[in-house]
């Protein structure tokens, strides 16, 4: 180690936590967010012990109104809507999380490379990103999912294809600004290699907005997965995926509980994630804390 101390990834992570006071991390909306998100994570992991019925078996008369036996009633095939809704978390949450992690990884790497090396590399990567972003997300995802065929895996691929450019663009902007800073110039001066400078000294410094964005996007991606399933391009029957359940509910107008239960589930989870994301932005955003 040389005498020159440069910010490292670990140091940067500590910085993240230091930036907000405890109160900034524990505002009421965020606490609500933590509780609701924790509930859904627990539900997703332990649903086989929590759910009263098998989500794909006919367990009662069809279209029963909500009652003690069936909290959210039954659907058109006599399946318990409450159990199906709980099981739905098993599909929506992991898929959205994987989609975000993969999109962040691909987008960040490509954005960082584009921003650091510039020139034709930058031009090629960012024009591809621009082209992808020129389409409305839902339309492009529909087109990709439709061409790959229905299924949750294909929906996941479609979402990654739609979502990575957001992070590429964000990361590129960060890299362009941090590249000019003195510590980077120092690293160049002592002969550090390009990739080392990029991934050890620039990228870690750029992660805050990506992290905030990814948290906010998680809710959007849950909705996008549900939208694709709603349109028949995501989950295949009899998978109790929320979007697909809403499609079933839409066919049974006069039994509103069928669509309301998964709708309410999505509402709570997206609201929780948005609260957490907002809180994170406030706690971490440099510009906000300087005010």
């Amino acid at each position: 180690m040389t005498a020159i101390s440069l910010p490292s990834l670990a140091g940067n992570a500590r910085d993240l936590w230091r930036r907000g006071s405890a109160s900034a991390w524990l505002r009421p909306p965020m606490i609500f967010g933590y509780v609701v998100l924790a509930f859904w994570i627990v539900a997703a992991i332990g649903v086989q012990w929590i759910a009263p019925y098998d989500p794909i078996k006919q367990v009662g008369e069809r279209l029963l109104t909500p009652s003690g036996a069936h909290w959210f009633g039954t659907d058109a095939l006599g399946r318990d809507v409450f159990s199906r809704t709980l099981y739905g978390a098993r599909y929506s949450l992991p898929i959205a999380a994987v989609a975000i992690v993969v999109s962040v990884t691909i987008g960040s790497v490509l954005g960082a490379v584009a921003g650091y090396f510039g020139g034709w590399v930058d031009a090629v990567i960012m024009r591809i990103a621009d082209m992808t972003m020129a389409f409305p997300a839902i339309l492009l995802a529909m087109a990709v999912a439709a061409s790959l065929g229905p299924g949750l895996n294909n929906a996941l691929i479609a979402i990654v294809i739609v979502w990575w450019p957001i992070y590429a663009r964000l990361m590129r902007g960060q890299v362009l600004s941090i590249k000019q800073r003195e510590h980077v110039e120092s690293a160049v001066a002592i002969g550090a290699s390009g990739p080392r400078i990029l991934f050890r000294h620039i990228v870690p410094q750029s992660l805050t907005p990506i992290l905030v964005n990814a948290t906010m996007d998680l809710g959007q991606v849950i909705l996008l997965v549900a939208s694709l399933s709603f349109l028949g391009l995501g989950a295949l029957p009899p998978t109790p995926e929320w979007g697909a359940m809403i499609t079933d509910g839409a066919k049974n107008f006069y039994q509103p509980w069928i669509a309301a239960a998964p709708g309410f589930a999505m509402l709570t989870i997206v609201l929780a994630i948005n609260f957490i994301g907002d809180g994170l932005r406030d706690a971490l955003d440099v510009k906000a804390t300087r005010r």
Partner: protein
Amino acid sequence: MHTKQRSTRFKWRSLVAMAATATLLLTGCSVGAATTAVAKHDLVIARAMDLTTLDPDRGYCDTCQIVFTALYDRLVIVSPEDSKTLQPGLASTFTANADNTQFTFGLDPAATFSDASPVEPKDVKWSLERLANIKGSASYLLAGMTSIDTPDAKTVVVNFAAPNSAFLAIVAASYLGIVNSDVASEHGASAAADASTADTAEDWFLSNSAGSGPYILDSYTANSAVKLTANPNYWRTKPTFDTVTLKEVTDSSSQLQQLQQGDVDIAMQISPDALDQLKNSPTVTTAAVDSFNYTYIALMPGAEGGAPLADVRVREAIRDAIDYDNIVKTLVAGYGKLQGSPIPNGFEGSEKVALPSYDVTKAKALLAEAGYPDGFTISSTYPKIVAYGVDLDLQMQAIQQNLASVGITLELTPVDFSQWADVIGGKGTPITAVYFAPDHTDSSQYVQYFGLIPNGGYVANFASLAGKTVNQAEVDGLTTALAQTGAERTASYQSLAQLMADDVNILPIVNPQLIMAHASDITGVTYSPCCNVDLGALGLTK
């Protein structure tokens, strides 16, 4: 309709779904007051329409049957009282020769087209030849026709190479309406042998009609409405209504709501679930009537991935593993029947075939005998549509559960209707689910479509591991039946029904009843196997 894959272009499913969402929002805001907003001389009908053309020789869909019947009279018609009896239409007399190869029609001297010109033998000859030569989806109805003679000013003689005792019933089909040949020819229509390429009248038919039916076409807006006005020169009893509008209303719930509000007078696709909402309505009348429509699953060993189905015991096991009664109860709230063979209840030949029964023990034993004691995994691609009140998606999920109980894992892939047609036209799918509604009142159509005969339907292409399959007994049986009449023919169709049931390639699942819901003062709302609903017969209580 032979499941209509030949011509139907269903709207992209996603658009339907989005429309459903929009409707959800819109209807949520409306106030449900039961009033009769529509003046009764203008009839409005709510219907999810499958129209893509209004050319009577190109169309082939359920809505086509209704519209063509209203616009184009046929030579003979099916009696509203008894679907097995034919009555005079444009032809006041109709006879067949002894061996059913020649059919003679004497035109009614009073018959006129909507432009007041008389219906002449040349129009009949031209119309039938155009239907045959345009090589559209309904052209199969005239297969085997060799020539049409017009010996005098009122007589038409249709000749066939082989006996065709079904022909008089076929002539009553809505696709065999007679077109004013002079008018249509002026606008590019052709009946010549090269009509499939030379005819350019399809666009003209989208905004005009040239028939002798009770109504004439006023306007057509795709995915919105078909408007008809009364034919001022109609040669029989003039229709009660001045105008009839078929309005596109895609889902059952919206149809129900519009009917309750009085925005429409007839709702054609109310689901049995919605029926409860109308039970005590003073302004709306409902009836559940027997239909000849049914949903079925097809088992196709010759399709990609279908090998386990090659053993007939496996197909029998699947047949016995399905809880039909539960499906009827669950999918159509009990408003339906079971059916034993591809020839539906009520059609000649259906009488003696045993209904399917649910027997899990027997199914497991059959699977073990066939070498699949632990079952197997098999895929199913099917169109995600609601056919006559039966949601095929739910039907397949119910069957999926049933098959799971005997160890068979059924992987479901619901697709858009046009995608499904591509699959069926390509490598096939081991198991599919579709529906069938008759084109006319003769049982021959079921053997022609579901029998394992040359030039049969899609099932014959995948009926064994070898792919294309012919059951010679069915080929011979059909030839025999088409040369017979009366009790002999009935016996022949009974044998054919049993032969097709024994193939175990087609498993009828539900024969749903049709839910008729209409304003209480409308009369004549009945279901006809050839033509769906006859708009010309609709009236008002006095």
